[in-house]
């Protein structure tokens, strides 16, 4: 239940954020975004993960994602 409410809140936030984006010059929003993304990537350098561990983690995540779309998948006409 909380998760549903949180999702509703986040969707509301995204809609408000897009309204702000539409009114904001690219130089302004992208400068803020660059600061945020560059900091994330800088921080990621400190994450102690080997290539092998990373691939293993992605494999697990993929399996979980496949399971979560299974019900929708049967409706798809490939």
């Amino acid at each position, binding site marked *: 239940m909380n998760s549903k409410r949180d*999702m509703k809140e*986040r*969707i509301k936030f*995204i*809609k408000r*954020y*897009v*309204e702000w*984006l*539409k*009114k*904001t*010059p*690219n*130089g302004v*929003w*992208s*400068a*803020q*975004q*660059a600061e*945020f*993304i*560059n900091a*994330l*990537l800088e921080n*990621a*350098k400190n*994450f102690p*993960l080997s*290539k092998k561990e*990373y*691939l293993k983690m992605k494999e697990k995540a993929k399996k979980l*994602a496949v399971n*979560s*779309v299974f019900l*929708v*998948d049967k*409706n*798809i*006409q*490939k």
Partner: protein
Amino acid sequence: MEGLELVFDGRRITLTNKRINKLDEFVFKVSSLIEKYTEYVIVSGYVSILFGRSRGTEDIDFVISSLSLEEFRKLYEDFLNSGFEFINSDDPVELFEMLIENQAVRACEVGTIFPNAEIKLPKDRFHLEALKQRIETMINDRRIFISPIELQIAYKLYLGSEKDIEDAIFLYELFRDHISHEKLQYWKTQLGVEGFEL
């Protein structure tokens, strides 16, 4: 001051005056390498980040057109000479085999893991359509190709995680006055998410 500086004419999107971040730089480097050897289209999370979504991503999905082993070898060498390495293997033949077995190969700058380019051949007709109908996108003076927005929105809804749904809503809200709502409905139906109200 003007608001968002974005022009969308259906086949081409132009975004001007964008402050380029490190993720954009990475995408430009990878795109310019791949396009020497084959066609590509960028799908998934980066598409929404490109247009201002405030989130990070660890990988950028590139769907590429098929290429021969020889072409892949050249692409591989070019990546290595440009400061990249592959996460999955150091053997180009093994990487090529992974590709044709519908597995993704991942390229990153030497000594890093994040961000990385997840490079794969089309795994279904949605990927094929994304390639066929890719949208030329100019960011300042750089060109990349991204998935059609309508297909991207529907595919994100299909993937269905909270993050994916948020991306779909972000793109829909941003492009709602520019996209074809008929095309969006078509892709939603094809992907079994026609009941999802945006």
